[in-house]
């Protein structure tokens, strides 16, 4: 897949408003997600982090009574307004790793290979199995599953499923990876593996992650967004936001979370 042109194009959110059943969930969100950086979105539970990530992938469509306005653009292409044919490619370029891991009803191997297959990538069998091995290794799952690649994926533990879903998203070589609490079910060692992976990946990809683990955000974030009740309170360079917050709310949240 050719994706070297897209590398320098940021993901821009403009005046994004979203409501479900008349209840506003996101309020006038304006953000520019930088390239080749790790952006951490933090904020209290229920503030709209997952909803924001879903909207970037246009997954909000499956929700009933949802209204959305504003623009989400990559490469000048609006995802909210995109036609179905464009949407497929846009979704490939913006991979979402869901908060609740959900393997597809197929084998471990096929879960990783599925995305590549539908996009016609790695048509040769050998190439495909190398790809599967590569991404499973990167997320630190290979050694655990290499002997049962053909076993159903839904028998994996939650933490293993989480890593599988990450590998599945990486395999289609997106430009942006949206990771919604990708380490929430992992032990500290596996979490570090994923963190290190993200740091390595940012040379090629741009990563937007949601986390409740502030130390983790501190360790790897380049850029930070603080979301509160559906509003962006503060965004900017991660060290600035975390160490020197401009807003009172951010400070309170960080203090509460750190102590």
């Amino acid at each position: 897949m050719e994706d070297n042109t897209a590398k320098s194009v940021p993901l821009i959110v403009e005046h994004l408003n979203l409501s479900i059943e008349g209840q506003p969930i996101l309020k006038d969100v304006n953000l520019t997600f930088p390239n080749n950086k790790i952006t951490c979105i933090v904020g209290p539970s229920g503030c709209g982090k997952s909803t924001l990530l879903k909207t970037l992938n246009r997954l909000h469509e499956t929700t009933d009574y949802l209204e959305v306005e504003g623009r989400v653009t990559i490469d000048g292409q609006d995802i909210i307004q995109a036609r179905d044919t464009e949407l497929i490619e846009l979704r490939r370029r913006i991979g979402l790793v869901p908060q609740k891991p959900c393997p597809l009803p197929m084998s471990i191997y096929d879960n990783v290979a599925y995305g590549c297959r539908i996009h016609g990538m790695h048509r040769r069998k050998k190439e495909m199995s190398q790809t599967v091995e590569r991404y499973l290794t990167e997320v630190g799952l290979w050694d655990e599953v290499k002997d049962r690649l053909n076993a159903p994926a839904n028998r994996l533990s939650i933490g293993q499923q989480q890593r599988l879903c990450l590998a599945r998203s990486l395999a289609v070589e997106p430009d942006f990876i949206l990771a919604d609490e990708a380490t929430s079910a992992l032990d500290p060692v596996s979490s570090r593996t994923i963190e290190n992976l993200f740091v390595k990946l940012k040379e090629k990809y741009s990563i937007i992650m949601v986390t409740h683990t502030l130390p983790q955000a501190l360790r790897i974030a380049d850029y930070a967004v603080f979301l509160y009740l559906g509003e962006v309170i503060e965004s900017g360079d991660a060290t600035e936001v975390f160490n020197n917050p401009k807003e009172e709310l951010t400070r309170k949240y960080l203090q509460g979370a750190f102590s």
Partner: protein
Amino acid sequence: MMKKLKSKYVEEYVMRSLMILATLLVLVFVASIIWTIFSKGIRSLSWDLVTRLPGKDWNTAPDGGFLNAILGSLMIVLPASVIGAAVSIPVVFYMTMYKRRTSRLSYMARLAYDVLYGIPSIVYGAFAFTIMVMVGMRASVLGGILVTTLLIIPIMIRSGDEIAKTVPDEIVEAAYSLGATKWETLKVVLRQILPGMVTAFLLAVGKAIGDAASVMFTAGFSDQLARSLSDPSATLPLAIFNWITMPDPFPERAYAAALVLTIIVLLLSLTSRIITRRITKNNL
């Protein structure tokens, strides 16, 4: 404290006994049905009965077999199942992929098949008969196929929809987020629900093949094999219905026919189990 624990224990004990009792009751029920049909049916069932057409004196003496009823039932139910599935599957898919409550068409469709599902088969039969009289059609295989199709569709749609609803939204979202089209996503969903769908459809077929009321006026009766769609035809449930009310030794044949019908239905559900297991093994 101890008292409370004790009363909880008693409560659980009573509930569990009730559940076991109810389960046993059902088992006894099933066993006695099967026992009655098998013990009475086996005695009168013979190779001749299932391979021969009725003889010349079939209505005054037990002469010949009831191959006409077996084949008649199959001739009606098999095409009806195929047509029924061909109509139901797209409807289930539509409601699965566009199951948003806001979709008015999905809502109307659900309402419609819920109503259809509740209509007794005799009403279908009467309805189809009225239409057939209006257009000047005789009781025939075609009439039987039509009414059985009508009967099968709501059952298939309803059970298919129930099964499709069990698919978590997350699977659909996972496929979408990888860039899958609606059609590709449907194929993923299908892997998940196929075993259930197969079972549901075969059960619908089983229900249809045993239904006498719907084919009573529409397929009619004949002591011959139907040679074309416009010929009337005997069916197993009607054959049972007729013979059981006649003087001895006709009820014997009713039990034999009931046994054949039961075996067909058992075979159907057995097949559905095997297919289900095979699909699940390969895909999940």
